């Protein structure tokens, strides 16, 4: 009798602890919703599509932050994902010693705090962009003159800060992270499948493209979504280099802001309606990252379910 009572309470205690995680998630939602109520009452849905952010006139819109977040994340992913995929395929095929050493190195790099990336971006990458990369892109290649898309790529005015710099920092930051996940996913391909592909005469590229990637495609998507979630919610690395301008970005050279950077930057001096607007931005970020995480988990889970684990 007594014995089972202890067991019973232990189980309930454990259940309570596990339930905390669900409570926390609900808590995030409820709290952000409650604290941003004022903004939704004043602006309604137009808050999402308004371009104006003017604390003096008490006019707030989320579109500049959302646009900055999405464009810097898009730049980061389009650089990091192909590199991470190629690097992961290399690591899976590499000799065991190289795989071991590089694999550990990648795991360690994923652990470096993001504020270090931000600081490096501010003191090294921003001057480099201003003196070398942006003049090369804008004055030598003149990519802003490319018909149709040119005006979204660059402009004649640049100062090193901006979406492109933010995207680059994010790409460097999430590359080891995505690479580590993709490597784990690709390693789960049964060796038999790959060997069979080599056996019928496939080259390594063909085995990778037609066998390994299709086999692990869900896991790969899951890994990409996890990297995407990380890039979306990253604060410090972007905050230092994006320029913190509350305006709609015109092209990849413009100074901009992201949701996370806006919150971290404006929160200390905000009150009243502006604070409520920042909570509303937080709610938007929460919804975005929840959706991405849900997609990521769904893909990763169906990747393991595929193998009947």
């Amino acid at each position: 009798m007594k014995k089972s009572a202890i067991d019973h309470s232990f189980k309930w205690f454990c259940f309570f602890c596990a339930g905390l995680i669900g409570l926390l998630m609900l808590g995030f939602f409820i709290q952000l919703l409650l604290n941003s109520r004022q903004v939704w009452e004043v602006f309604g849905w137009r808050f999402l599509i308004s371009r104006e952010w003017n604390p003096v006139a008490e006019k707030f819109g989320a579109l500049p932050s959302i646009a900055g977040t999405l464009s810097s994340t898009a730049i980061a992913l389009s650089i990091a994902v192909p590199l991470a995929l190629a690097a992961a395929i290399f690591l899976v095929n590499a000799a065991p010693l190289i795989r071991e050493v590089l694999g550990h190195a990648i795991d360690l790099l994923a652990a470096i705090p993001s504020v270090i990336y931000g600081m490096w971006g501010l003191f090294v990458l921003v001057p480099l962009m201003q003196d070398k990369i942006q003049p090369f892109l804008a004055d030598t290649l003149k990519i802003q003159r490319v018909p149709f898309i040119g005006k979204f790529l660059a402009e004649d005015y640049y100062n090193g800060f901006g979406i492109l710099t933010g995207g680059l920092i994010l790409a460097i930051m999430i590359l080891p992270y995505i690479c580590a996940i993709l490597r784990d996913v690709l390693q789960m391909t049964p060796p038999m499948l790959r060997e069979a592909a080599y056996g019928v005469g496939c080259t390594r590229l063909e085995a990778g493209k037609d066998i390994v990637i299709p086999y692990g495609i869900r896991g790969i998507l899951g890994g990409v979504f996890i990297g995407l979630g990380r890039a979306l919610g990253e604060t410090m690395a972007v905050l230092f280099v994006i320029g913190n301008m509350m305006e709609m970005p015109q092209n990849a050279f413009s100074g901009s802001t992201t949701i996370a950077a806006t919150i971290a930057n404006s929160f200390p001096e905000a009150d009243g309606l502006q604070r409520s607007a920042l909570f509303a931005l937080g709610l938007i970020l929460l919804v975005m990252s929840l959706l991405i995480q849900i997609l990521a988990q769904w893909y990763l889970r169906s990747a393991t379910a595929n193998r009947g684990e």
Partner: protein
Amino acid sequence: MKKKKLFKRKLANHIFRIFSLLAVLLASAAMLVIVSHVIRAGCKALSPGFFLNPSKPYGVPDSGIANALLGSMMITLGAALLATPPAICAGIYLAEFRDHPKVTAVLRFSANVMMGMPSVLVGLFVYILMVVPAGHFSGLAASVALAIIMFPVVMRTTEDMLGMVPYALREASLAIGMTRTRTTLKIICRSARKGLITGILLALARVSGETAPLLFTALFADSWPGDYLSGPTPNMPVLITEYSTNSPFAAMHQAGWGAALVITVLVLALNIGTRILFREKRHAP
């Protein structure tokens, strides 16, 4: 015709292999550049006084990072103390009590989702939860924020580690009449303890560099962290942020690089040390 096709296939293959080698080299080169820059710029700031003196406003001599280092340790240790016991119990629930598989699945899913929660939102959450009602910033609030970030990580690692314990151990322990509780705590957790410690330490390393939540909770102070419970507490990440963004002085930037070097070395040392000391033998069947 056929020969040309083979040539093309081989060419594509070689191009791809060179591209993937370049990708690996590029990734590692970027990292080497960053880490070596942190080391080079950081070393100039290092001196015994840098580690022994508290931080001071610009211009005051004998400035250091001792208070921030101590404050960061208090905040991170506090987070570990707050997060570890409930997180391990939560992991035990996921791994050991499987009578409601649907509930377990939902909780596991929540933990996975929470692992991707942007840390700036955790900062906002704790700000409203603790800083506003109390009326002041505090190191404790920062510990709570970091604990919230650690919690799902430790929970999921615990579940994975307990899942690797052979089932026969549970059966043997129950068969000699031990209760479920004793079996779980004394047999299963003990045989998985290496994995559990690894999980906790890696989570600790991960949160010790978190900056965004601390901006909303601990803030910063040029004092010793005596106000852990009731006032702004100095810490390394915010010191780095303050010195590099809010200060035009080269001396402050240099101190910022020094602090960046210290925290990078600490995080990497914790990572490497954990991986070497508590390495699991994965080859065992």
